């Protein structure tokens, strides 16, 4: 893929580079967005604490690789397990008692849990930014002037594998069937003998495990983590979930990739200071034009 060094070629290469960066960042958003969309699909709650589960995942990966010297794959798995347990405990302690209260009450609780995770973490590890250990080789591949590094390849491959596993679990297993049933109609599912509480716990576990994986990947990609790192990506992943159609798993993947691309393109061609604003402006546009998102189902309000 050698381009002749003309103006057009250079512009195209720059564009390709932004797309490569966008796909790697977007994959991470997609992993986090899946947790949002699954939880929203099943109990209609924006789990604000989800971004912080992702932060905890990054710290677990950091601790495992720094103090035990394990490699990338064990760190990823340990982090996913810890986050799955964390997600299930959050659901049991904070959300389950509120199953029948107003949506605002649950939303405020979710914000509370999010702050609690952030500042408890800050209390124990300190507010400073830590640099992530280098786990992967620093090898880069060049295609013309488009650079793809090892981290990006790992991120994309890990994401693809996790997505395939997730699709398998949701569509082919018994638990996945239960999850789909509960999200379609909770009461009917219960009447059919599905254990709704267990299914919700399981959904939180899967979603949080994916967020944990996202945390480790982002640590590797950006090389730095801090206790408040989950806030912004968490919100952006939520935007991704809304864009794809909340409750839809393929939607979250498409949404994540789109938000990643949007962000890198705004930083690459416009002003990188405006990239967060661009994502939120995009969200407001979607909410106004097509609130159900790309692949979401339209729901009519019943009186």
């Amino acid at each position: 893929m050698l381009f002749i060094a003309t103006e057009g070629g250079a512009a195209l290469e720059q564009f390709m580079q932004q797309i490569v960066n966008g796909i790697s960042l977007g994959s991470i958003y997609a992993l986090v967005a899946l947790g949002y969309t699954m939880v929203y699909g099943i109990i209609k709650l924006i789990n604000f604490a989800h971004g912080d589960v992702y932060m905890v995942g990054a710290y677990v990966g950091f601790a495992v690789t720094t103090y035990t010297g394990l490699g990338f794959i064990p760190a990823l798995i340990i982090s996913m397990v810890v986050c799955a347990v964390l997600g299930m405990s959050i659901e049991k302690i904070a959300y389950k008692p509120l199953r029948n209260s107003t949506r605002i009450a649950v939303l405020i609780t979710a914000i509370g849990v999010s702050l609690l995770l952030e500042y408890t973490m800050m209390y124990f590890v300190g507010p400073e930014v830590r640099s992530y250990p280098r786990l992967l080789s620093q090898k880069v591949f060049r295609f013309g002037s488009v650079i793809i590094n090892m981290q990006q390849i790992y991120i994309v491959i890990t994401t693809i594998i996790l997505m395939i596993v997730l699709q398998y679990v949701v569509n082919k297993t018994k638990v996945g069937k239960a999850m789909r049933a509960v999200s379609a109609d909770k009461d009917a599912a219960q009447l059919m003998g599905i254990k709704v509480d267990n299914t919700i716990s399981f959904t939180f576990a899967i979603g949080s495990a994916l967020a944990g994986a996202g945390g480790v990947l982002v640590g590797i990609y950006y090389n730095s983590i801090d206790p408040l790192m989950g806030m912004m990506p968490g919100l952006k992943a939520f935007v991704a979930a809304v864009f794809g159609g909340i409750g839809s798993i393929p939607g979250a993947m498409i949404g994540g990739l789109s938000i990643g691309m949007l962000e890198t393109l705004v930083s690459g061609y416009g002003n990188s200071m405006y990239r967060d604003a661009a994502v939120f402006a995009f969200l407001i546009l979607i909410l106004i034009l097509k609130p159900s998102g790309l692949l979401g189902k339209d729901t009519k309000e019943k009186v």
Partner: protein
Amino acid sequence: MKVLNKKNIFTLIIIIAIYALVQLLLTTGTISSFYEITIATICINIILAVSLNLVTGFTGQFSLGHAGFMSIGAYAGALINMSMKSTSGFLAGILIGAIAAAIIGVLIGIPTLRLKGDYLAIATLGMAEIIRVVFLNMEITNGAAGLNGIPRFTNWTWLYLFTALTIVLINNFVRSSQGRACISIREDEIAAESMGINTTKYKVMAFAIGAAFAGVAGALYSSYFYFINPTMFGFQKSIDILVIVVFGGLGSITGSVIAAVLLAVITTMLQSFSSLRMIIYALLLVIIMLFRPQGLLGTKEVTDLFKFRRNEKVE
């Protein structure tokens, strides 16, 4: 109905008495300048909480972007105040800050208030974030460094005047027919609409009034603390205000006032453990929601207690 009936005169006497008491303590030096800052924070937080309560507590529209409106007021007030260094400049700053915040409130409210519940929360959060990024990039607001050396005209008298004004005006609004329309939207939007209430109009109205008072609070804030920058008005600030409203009770003005005072006292006491402050805030938020989701006072006012005793019946 006479304006100067027994109840109003009684309220007026209480308002003046509180003012005189604190003024006396300030002039005699019983309240040190350290606690004076706490008092200023309480007043500003009361204005913010009561105005957010109008939007979230009374109208039922969950907004996570109140700090955005506060920042508009703060910047407008600071810029005018810095070019007109006089009391009239200070008052003009407050007025223009309030109007600017209200205009942005209407512009943002019309499209976003069609959304419900959690979607609205995210949209308002996004909008506050956009406002912050705009201030971060504007020339006139001096970017991330913020504005420094804003002349201080805010003192206890002005703070108290605007706090009392906010409480009285919003209290009267809530008890007017427009206010009752807002409450009916909170109770059941579809039912309200089928009774002929223009829900969009009243939602935008509540949003704009809330934004205007947040703008006033912002202008007072900038003039009291000399210095503002965009990071002060982030997501965190919106949450701080929300905690006060939720703690006091969604739909209770006196609840918001009490919660603002209590939380300021707790914060001052925790001054030396500032790293614990946010953990305590977060725990407080979760525990209130788990055990008392309606907040300290629910939708009741402190004055309801007196009514109950006098008439031996509720409402």
